[in-house]
């Protein structure tokens, strides 16, 4: 009997016992072809999906290695059907290839004629193709390079894109490593991307994805288009690039709602790119404004659908996607795979945390009990009003205050969904509130003040959720939120995960009304966070005073 740390389940999940002495070796062996799905304290769950297997293929692993890894580390015999399935799935990648032909241009070739015949019969593929050149090759309209990859992936025959890239307009970019240095994993990530051509780098929040982007630009030495989620994020990218690279103020342009600069390095927001006037995307020309040598996608998991469509036309340019997770709420992981590229680098959160790159977080759920009157009112509320009602109960304001008092002297962030509630809390705590209507300039001023420890407590609404950088937030208190969304959890947690100067752990509180729909959402959150490996416990609101903050 083998005593390996891995148990292979028939639903293609892999259970890894983390306390096992061979767990580390096993993790390394299975990471290329299995996505970490859950990482609670004792047993981590990986899932083997077709996309994960194809990612492994793209990274140069073959079925034999995968099967050896499974059999070699598995504690129990691995069902044969599963092995067959894995080998079969992996063999599908690369049977079709996109290549560049000196005369015909872009062509689709195959090593297996039957496969080519099969896909040629598909009605969805036919309009994307040109003439049949030989038995094993067919011309592809150059403009359909992205579409054909998407379509073939849906048919289950992902094509390997070997057609290469245009170099783009040359522009010198150097990393300026003074006073800081590229972390090893950041260098690995950038190198892995560059050797792979195009693809996605998966790093947890706070692991310095911006720097990986900068390193990728230094590899490319070419004009770069950076797509980010919002204006604040665009500013931060700019600041970071100025600090970390040889680029100067004049070389970096912002293309946002307010500014329309096109420079060798241009940072644009998804929002402006997806603005439509009379059904027409008004800023599409940005993609052709320069001969971009590299396109950087920040937060790939939030990439809106229109950007996917635009990206389909950018297949000749190098693309790098940066994200904390490949999981998309809309299930379009396949489009990321075919349009941006396969996963090129991945580091598990927990591992980075162990290495000290990110601060460990302690998650506490505080259960607030509604008063009897509130309970009655809650029971009678309209269904669509219920969540708002229970999540904005006045008791929460009191608990939030108690928590802020307890963490006096630390940088505290209060996050919420409802402006009234946030305003009330801001008033009680005498803290500034950042919400949708706050002007960008004001926002940045407050953030800077928070960073400089001039302000200890900051109350933020949903707008603070994406791509902002609050380095010294040690405590986050979530009073309300429309969750169940896995992304938001990751984002919120990202806020407080920054390594602190004193190396102390961050703390994440979420306030939940007992026996209401709020608690149901909290159950999702609890599951998600526990699955991410964070310590999680539940206390009652009455215990807040007594709980020892040092614990």
């Amino acid at each position, binding site marked *: *009997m*083998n005593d390996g740390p891995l*148990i*292979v*389940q*028939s*639903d293609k*999940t892999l*259970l890894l*016992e983390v306390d096992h002495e061979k767990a580390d070796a096993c993790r390394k062996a299975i990471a290329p072809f299995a996505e970490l799905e*859950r990482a*609670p*304290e*004792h*047993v981590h*769950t990986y899932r083997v999906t077709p996309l994960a297997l194809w990612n492994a293929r793209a990274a140069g692993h073959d079925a034999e290695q995968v099967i050896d890894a499974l*059999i070699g580390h*598995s*504690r*129990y*015999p*691995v*069902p*044969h*059907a599963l*092995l*067959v399935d894995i080998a079969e799935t992996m063999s599908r990648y690369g049977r079709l290839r996109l290549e560049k032909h000196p005369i015909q241009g872009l062509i689709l070739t195959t090593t297996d004629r039957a496969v080519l015949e099969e896909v040629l019969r598909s009605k969805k593929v036919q309009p994307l193709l040109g003439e049949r050149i030989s038995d094993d090759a067919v011309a592809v309209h150059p403009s359909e390079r992205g579409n054909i990859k998407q379509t073939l992936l849906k048919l289950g025959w992902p094509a390997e894109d070997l057609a290469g890239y245009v170099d783009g307009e040359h522009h010198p970019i150097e990393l300026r490593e003074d006073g800081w240095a590229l972390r090893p994993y950041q260098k690995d990530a950038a190198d892995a991307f560059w050797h792979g051509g195009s693809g996605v780098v998966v790093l947890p929040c706070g692991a310095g994805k911006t720097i990986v982007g900068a390193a990728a630009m230094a590899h490319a030495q070419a004009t770069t288009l950076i797509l980010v989620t919002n204006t604040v994020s665009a500013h931060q990218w700019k600041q970071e690039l100025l600090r970390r690279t040889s680029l100067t103020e004049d070389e970096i342009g912002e293309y946002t709602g307010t500014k329309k600069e096109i420079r060798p390095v241009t940072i644009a927001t998804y929002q402006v790119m997806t603005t439509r006037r009379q059904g027409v995307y008004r800023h599409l020309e940005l993609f052709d404004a320069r001969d971009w040598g590299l396109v950087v996608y920040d937060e790939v998991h939030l990439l809106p659908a229109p950007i996917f469509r635009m990206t389909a036309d950018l297949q000749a340019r190098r693309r790098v996607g940066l994200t904390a997770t490949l999981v998309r709420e809309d299930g379009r992981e396949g489009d990321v795979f075919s349009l941006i590229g396969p996963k090129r680098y991945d580091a598990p959160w927990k591992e980075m945390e162990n290495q000290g790159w990110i601060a460990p977080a302690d998650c506490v*759920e505080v259960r607030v009990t509604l008063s009897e009157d509130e309970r009655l009112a809650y029971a009678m509320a309209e269904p669509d009003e219920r969540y708002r009602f229970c999540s904005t109960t006045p008791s929460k304001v009191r608990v939030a205050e108690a928590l802020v008092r307890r963490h006096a002297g630390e940088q505290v962030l209060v996050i919420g969904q409802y402006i009234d509630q946030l305003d009330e809390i801001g008033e009680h705590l005498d803290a500034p509130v950042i919400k949708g209507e706050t002007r960008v300039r004001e926002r940045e001023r407050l953030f800077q003040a928070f960073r400089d420890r001039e302000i200890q407590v900051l109350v933020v609404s949903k707008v603070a959720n994406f791509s902002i950088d609050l380095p010294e937030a040690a405590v986050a208190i979530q009073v309300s939120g429309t969750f169940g969304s896995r992304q938001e959890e990751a984002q919120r947690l990202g806020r407080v995960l920054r390594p602190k100067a004193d190396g102390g752990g961050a703390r994440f509180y979420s306030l939940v009304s007992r*026996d209401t729909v709020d608690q149901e959402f909290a159950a999702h959150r*609890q*599951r998600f966070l*526990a*699955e991410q490996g964070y*310590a*999680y*416990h*539940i206390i009652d609101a009455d215990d807040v005073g007594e709980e020892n903050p040092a614990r």
Partner: protein
Amino acid sequence: MGTEFSEWLRGRSDERLRALVAARPELVTPVPAHIEGLAARAGSPSAVGRALDRLDRFTLAVLETLALQPGPATREALRSPLARACAGAPGAEALDAALDEALDRLRTRALVYDHPDERGDDALLPAPGVAEALEPPAALGPPATEVFRHHPPEHLETILADVHADGSGPAGGRAPRERLAALLADHDAVGRLVGEVSPQARAALEELAWGPPSGRLPNARREVAAAAAQSPVEQLLARALLGATGEETVALPREVGLFLRGGRVHRDLSPRPPDLEGPVRDQDRADRTAAGQAFAFARTVEELCELWSVDPPGVLRAGGLAVRDLKRTAQLLDLPEWAAGLVAEVCLAAGLVAAGDGEWLPTGGYDGWRVKATEDRWALLASAWAGMDRVPGLIGGRDERDRPLNALHPDLRRPGAAQVRTRTMAVLAAAGPGVAPTPESVLARLAWEQPRRRAAMRDRLAEFALREAEHIGVTGLGVLAGHGRAVIGAGTAADASGVAAALLAPLLPEPVDHVLLQADLTAVAPGPLTGDLGRWLALAADVESKGGATVYRFGEQSIRRALDAGQSADEVLAMLEKHSATPVPQPLSYLVTDVARRHGRIRVGTASAYVRCDDPALLDEVLADKRAGLLRLRRLAPTVLASKTSRAALVDSLRAMGYAPVAESLEGDVVVARADARRTEGQILPRAHNVSGPDPEVVAAAVRAIRAGDEAHRTRRRPSDAPGGQVPRSPATATIQALQEAIREGARVWIGYLDSQGHATSRILEPARMEGGYLTAYDETRATVHRFALHRITGVAQYTG
């Protein structure tokens, strides 16, 4: 000749006879009365056919070679054509060994018998009935006498005259047909004739020599003279190198074919079976992989039965499982449809499910199976699979009449399915440790082992068997696993299962008695759980993922279920602490206490009727009444009584007690009853007969019985000459034997025959052919060819007129 064969059989030792009966068990069902009976049965077409079906290609070739010899043939006479046919294969020693083995096999099976040739040397003859059953041997054409049987004698004379242009041919006396046959048997003469024809004609001959020995030709019966022959075919017809066998068919006479084959009977013959080719894998790893699959398979079977316990699919009117139900089952089991069909079929074969009340339900046998250890469960399933005569692979296809074939339908039976399956597995077993033979080489080996079986069906069945073996876990990575070998191995059924289970057990995950509890409210059981813990967890948590381990998830619902089952929060927590290898996470204990806090605050009961009255005193009165005892009243509140009797009965009783109740409308009257898991007593499919042959005891007993019967028979026996003027009477077996002999020798016989009115008549016949229970013969009495039903022939006597 028939008697010679009987005598030869009689002279065999008991041991040899036992070997014969063991190899051809159909000879003793029922046990023949005496050796003559045994000999007659051994020579009957069906018995010979079955015996031939079991011969491998080389042994069959030996027998064919023997059958083509004019008389008794010595070993040496057989060896030379075989040696030529085996030219491509390895050396002489291999051939000699294989030939000896083959001859021994044929003797054992009484397909040949010893008979000295003219010079008195040791030689062999094919047993009665064998030559007929082999027809046409080695894909040769019919003998010349047969080909030219229907040619007018004048036509044959013309041909003879043509081919003997030099006038050297043997002069008349014999019939032209005989003379022509004699001519074609002479290799020199045929050689000369072949030399005369054009190259195209020779090419046509070559084609016919190894290919099918007949062809189609319009107006085949044309008469052509050698001089006038135009086309290549006409040249051949004119020289009798080709003969018309019908209006539009021509055939190559056997003698010509043999000449063209140049002293060989077979083209490419190998004394050894073809090698099994395929990758070599680590046997240990293959065993483990197979065990993994076996574990998964046993679990799938359990899942299917559990599924069907609560939600049984219906039985189609024609029998079987609806396509829709199979699809649904496949989906629920997360299997492809063929695999789901296989699981259902194995369940049926193992007697775990059966049709009852128009639904497919698990049987009582399933309950017994479920409590066994995994390895025993698997062994039972695997041996049921190995022995079943149904073919799950056909599910989803269509039968000959284009009707869809449904799972569990009676039409899935295919005689010989079990045999092919066993043979396929035997081939894998022969491959040696770690070898995973390719399907092609397995099929090639099967074809070599039993060339006479229908190839298309056999190949399909064998491919199904390979695929199914992999899915069931008999093989792993294409290699027969140790436990798989035991399941398909010889020996009595119970024994094999036991051995297989013993081999499988150490490869399976060992039961564990602990789980790992985690903060995301899951419990991971790193192996199959011991019975009690497994049952408890199934109650208190939901299964999220299965396999070697089981992942359970705790939720409000599942904790509530445990509390509903009568456990307290403290008991649940104690159970968790006792069986967790790690500390119980705080969120989990919080969940338990939180659910318990709210559990049972609202209470619900069932009552079929209630009594409501604004005056509590009146209700006191009712309760105090002794007659109310039967009504099972319970006071819920001062003014409300609940009762378990029906409203109508309550009203009637209260009236009888002298009150004046009024019935209220039926609100709140809900009786919840969960449908329980159901079982059927339906018929369990009888196990298919044992394919590995009869037990040695049965064989020995049969031989003893035959010997004893034979002794008695011989003391009674009288010489049976043709009774003058009497309608002949002889035992049926002897009749058939005598007729076969007459066909072979072309002799005329005198038979007694019951005509269609039942009158006994006697006829003089020249028997030509015997098949399908009929004798075709030339009836000299009536001067016509006629078919005679064998069962109406009362007896045969030699005609010496």
